[in-house]
């Protein structure tokens, strides 16, 4: 017999246990909420959120530095490199090797 079966001893015990009323008071004990609120509101922010805030700040600084370095080196980046000019201006190496021209 399976314990899920209503005739199983477990099911009959559980059914009887459910009939026991819980008459205990469910209001918070005196001073409980004051103590919890004081502890929670004065507690420092958790390390997770501190790390999160620092990470965002670090990301901002990193972006700023990236933009600054691009701006400072823009003229160098914009003008074509002399070596690059040679490479693009010369003959096609493959064509030369295969003697296609």
């Amino acid at each position: 017999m399976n314990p899920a079966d209503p005739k199983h001893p477990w099911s009959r015990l559980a059914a009887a246990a459910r009939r026991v009323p819980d008459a205990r008071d469910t209001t918070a004990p005196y001073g409980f909420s004051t103590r919890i609120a004081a502890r929670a509101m004065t507690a420092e922010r958790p390390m997770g959120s501190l790390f999160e805030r620092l990470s965002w700040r670090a990301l901002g600084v990193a972006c700023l530095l990236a933009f600054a370095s691009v701006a400072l080196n823009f003229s160098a980046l914009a003008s074509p490199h002399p070596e690059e000019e040679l490479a693009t201006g010369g003959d096609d190496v493959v064509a030369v090797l295969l003697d296609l021209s």
Partner: protein
Amino acid sequence: MPEDDPPFDVPGCLARVRQRDQQAARDLVDHLYPLVIRIVRSHLPRRVLEEDLAQEVFMKMFTRIDQYQGAVPFPHWVSRIAVTTCIDHLRAQKRRPEFRWADLSEGEADVLDAVMTNESDVAPDDALEAHELVHKLLDQLKPDDRMVIQLLDLEQKTIAEISGLTGWSQSLVKVRAFRARRKLQKLFTDLKRKERS
């Protein structure tokens, strides 16, 4: 609570709590205490004080309050914190006491004997002994299995509700219920074999 009391304004209270308003935090604790203490009492591990466990639940709630997105009602979100906190404490209890006839009271042994030897329901006068027996039997299960069977059979929650409360998938809840019932079946078989001395 009188019928004509205005409903508790949870979103408004949460907004004030997020601004570190202590009065709002107190109101929130007072409002949620009955819900939390019912869960804590139902799943209270041995040698743990219910007030300590309730305090831990509320401290977790305040620590994580910024993570609450409003996808589920706030009391459901807090219930989940309470249930998972209880499971953590149950898991921390490494040893589970062995279930023996000799450790039962006279009344408990009589009730257990009766349910194992006949098919009639437990008499209303014996409900308290049955309640104690059920909790002693639940103590034999693994914490996760115990939680599932308690929510299913004692609190009569549905699989979907248990899934929502624990954060486990519905398949996992079913697997745990199956495993717990198999263990209970084994317990009853062993008890029957040993008989009452």
